[in-house]
């Protein structure tokens, strides 16, 4: 039926399909997966961790973390903090070039700060510069920054990424600027291309002032998390930023994969809407906490540490004198009775109404479904009817953040190095959508914000931990052990717990 020519053509075509591509190890890219590709590569418009991670490769800040998580100069060479702590003079590195060949100067620093402060820019990172009063160029590589208030460690707050002033006009950066198609930074990797499969390719910046060993990096969008671990096991990607708990055992057994544990400042919680009638009663809140068996909820989804307050256990602000509660059904029952409830047909009932709550969570919160289902069972067995609701991100922001329309939420907070819980627990906090109010906590958080002595801040926040824990505005659940997974081909790996790629310039592929 087929001519010989057709047969030979088909044979050669199939060989092309099957034969593997061979490239040298050094020119192979480091391929990593993200749930969602970055929408925009411009650090002042970053809205997601995938954007923050890729920005870490392309852009740099005046300061950054070293591997001990201490602040060190990056684009800055040295700085002098004024005695009155109201200003600092920063001397910049003189050997830094932008990816397009321009020299990095103090004008870039001035522009970045002004653009972030400019309301017309509508930067998502504008909060990072609100503490800056003014920035003045003193020379091509010298800049003076003045602060609104005294700052004792301003370098910690100057880790935001710097943009090239020569690619923008005036002091406004716009989302529509053509910079979005060709981002330019000073980092070890430079932008190469947006690809048709929604991947992003980066290549080594040949004129990087420091050392960088990776030749290429490719970000692949793999929206289905079920595939990510498998693709790593297959060798189709080289790095997985965060391993799902259910994939840990599979990857642990794989000789070609290495797991890297890291500590994050993130914790899970069940948050009450304090304006709901059931939540207003402290006895009910205390009873619910005693009904929840957190060990049983945690076990199916991974390992971690139970918490008693709004910090991770390794945090200097965590109050270890506040113990985590253990399930106690009889004590919980006593508290419910004190709150005026009675068990009717195995349901806690008050004024003829059985207690029924809705627990809301985010659809894309890993393992939330397992937790919420198990929690529903636990509470149902103890006389409380639980309904569940799952929101996507936009719904969550609108209904929970915007309208506080919920009974109880299951969610997670992630914090950077500052672990600033002001917005979550201060009565005026922008993320206090549970409507929690305690003047004493307000005072403590105000004191912590203005504290310049680290010891003073530590003791203040530990007291805040104790006070908040006593109020039960949330059931503090746990912090999960986090793991990244990389192919054993990737060497010299040290991972930043928040940004992942901060020290990637030392990684290399074997």
């Amino acid at each position, binding site marked *: 039926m087929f001519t010989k020519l057709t047969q030979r053509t088909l044979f050669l075509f199939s060989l092309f399909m*099957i034969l*593997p591509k061979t490239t040298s190890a050094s020119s192979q890219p480091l391929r990593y997966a993200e749930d969602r590709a970055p929408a925009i590569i411009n650090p002042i418009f970053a809205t997601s961790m995938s954007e923050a991670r890729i920005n870490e490769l392309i852009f740099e800040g005046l300061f950054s973390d070293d591997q001990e998580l201490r602040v060190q100069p990056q684009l800055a060479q040295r700085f002098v903090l004024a005695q009155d702590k109201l200003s600092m003079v920063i001397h910049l590195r003189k050997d830094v070039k932008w990816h397009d060949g321009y020299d990095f100067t103090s004008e870039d620093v001035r522009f970045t700060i002004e653009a972030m402060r400019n309301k017309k820019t*509508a930067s998502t990172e504008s909060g990072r510069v609100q503490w800056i009063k003014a920035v003045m160029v003193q020379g091509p590589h010298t800049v003076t920054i003045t602060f609104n208030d005294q700052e004792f460690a301003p370098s910690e707050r100057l880790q935001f990424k710097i943009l090239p002033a020569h690619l923008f006009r005036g002091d406004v950066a716009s989302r529509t600027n053509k910079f979005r198609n060709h981002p330019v930074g000073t980092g070890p990797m430079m932008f190469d291309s947006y690809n048709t499969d929604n991947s992003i390719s980066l290549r080594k910046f040949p004129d990087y002032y420091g050392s960088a060993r990776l030749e290429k990096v490719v970000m692949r969008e793999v929206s289905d998390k079920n595939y990510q671990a*498998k693709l790593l096991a*297959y060798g189709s990607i080289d790095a997985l930023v965060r391993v799902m708990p259910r994939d840990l055992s599979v990857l642990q057994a794989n000789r070609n994969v290495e797991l890297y544990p890291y500590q994050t400042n993130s914790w899970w919680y069940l948050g009450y809407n304090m304006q709901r009638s059931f939540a207003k009663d402290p006895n009910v809140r205390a009873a619910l906490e005693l009904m929840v068996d957190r060990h049983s909820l945690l076990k199916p989804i991974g390992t971690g540490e139970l918490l008693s307050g709004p910090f991770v256990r390794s945090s200097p602000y965590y109050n270890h004198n506040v113990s985590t509660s253990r399930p106690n059904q009889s004590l919980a029952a006593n508290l419910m009775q004190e709150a005026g409830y009675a068990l009717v047909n195995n349901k806690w009932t008050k004024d003829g109404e059985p207690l029924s709550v809705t627990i809301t969570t985010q659809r894309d919160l890993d393992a939330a479904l397992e937790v919420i289902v198990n929690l529903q069972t636990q509470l149902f067995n103890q006389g409380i009817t639980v309904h569940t609701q799952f929101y*996507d991100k*936009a*719904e969550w922001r*609108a209904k929970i953040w915007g309208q506080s329309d919920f009974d109880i939420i299951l969610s997670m907070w992630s914090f950077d190095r500052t672990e600033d819980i002001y917005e979550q627990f201060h009565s005026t906090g922008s993320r206090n959508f549970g409507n929690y109010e305690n003047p004493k906590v307000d005072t403590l958080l105000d004191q912590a914000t203005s504290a310049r002595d680290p010891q003073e801040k530590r003791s203040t926040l530990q007291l805040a931990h104790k006070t908040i824990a006593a109020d039960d505005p949330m059931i503090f659940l746990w912090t999960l052990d986090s793991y990244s997974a990389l192919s054993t081909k990737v060497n010299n790996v040290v991972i930043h717990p928040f940004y992942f790629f901060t020290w990637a310039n030392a990684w290399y592929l074997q």
Partner: protein
Amino acid sequence: MGRIDSKIISQSASVVVIAAATLIGATLTIETLLWAAPGDPIDLLPNGASLRPILEIEWGLDRSLSERWWDALIRLSKGDLGTSMSVRPGLDVWTLIAAPVQRSLLWAGLAMVTSVVLGLITIGTKGTIHRLLHVLGIVSIAPLFLATHMAVNTINDITFGAISSGYIDRPNFFALPLEESLVRTVLAIFLLGFASGNLYEWREEIIVIKNRIDTSDYVMATRSRGLPVWQHFLYNAIPPLASLVVARIPLYLGGLVILERLFLLEGAGALLWNAALARDYALASGLTLVFASFVIITRLIASLIQLQINPRHSLSHASNA
């Protein structure tokens, strides 16, 4: 002939008017749905609350639904689909969707052809192959997402096993669906044409058409003269097949939304999904409009084909078939 030409022109005009009304209706529908969905693109920003006063004005979200819809119509009349708000902030929607739409339409078209060809094959065979294809038709009822997961996992596991055992070298397509390859694209097109009952329904419809044509007078007369009937079959099958194609296009386009996400294909379906999640009003409207336009154009083409083959049908009758 002159009467038929003027008839075609007047009926074409009415079809165009209906098409325009359909596009306007599609625009209104998608704008309303997005407006009704909780949250907007500003909610997705970390400091959305503080940026809202500025961005609402910049993105036109401070205006009422009717004002926004009217603005959208004015922009559309000038060929401007707007700017993406949250999926690719700042990028022109036309630029963003041009290539993905072309890819998606190609995949949907090829999937449709696959379904039709497989359907024709199943009725053209006999014996064991016919029974096998009949079973395949029943299997095709499996939902698309399930069929995709099974196919991808099975192929990957078998291939990985063969690679690990040293039987084969790592093929270019491995591992599905990450690597861009012909295997991935062909598998995706096949599954779209096969699963969610597509093959089964096409097969059943083609059998009905075949039986109707087989029992028609002209076919029986031709057969009685000992002449081949396949030309008659094909010629008379085209109008009902064209109607079926037009009726099923929206299903294939809808299936693309699932398929492109599962296969990591960068098409318009995956883009529409992301636009909905990210409340990117301009992008979602633009994609809906393009898809609606495509459906209308294909209906018009099918109508003209039917009219050409059988001038006794009116254009409006053919387009509504």
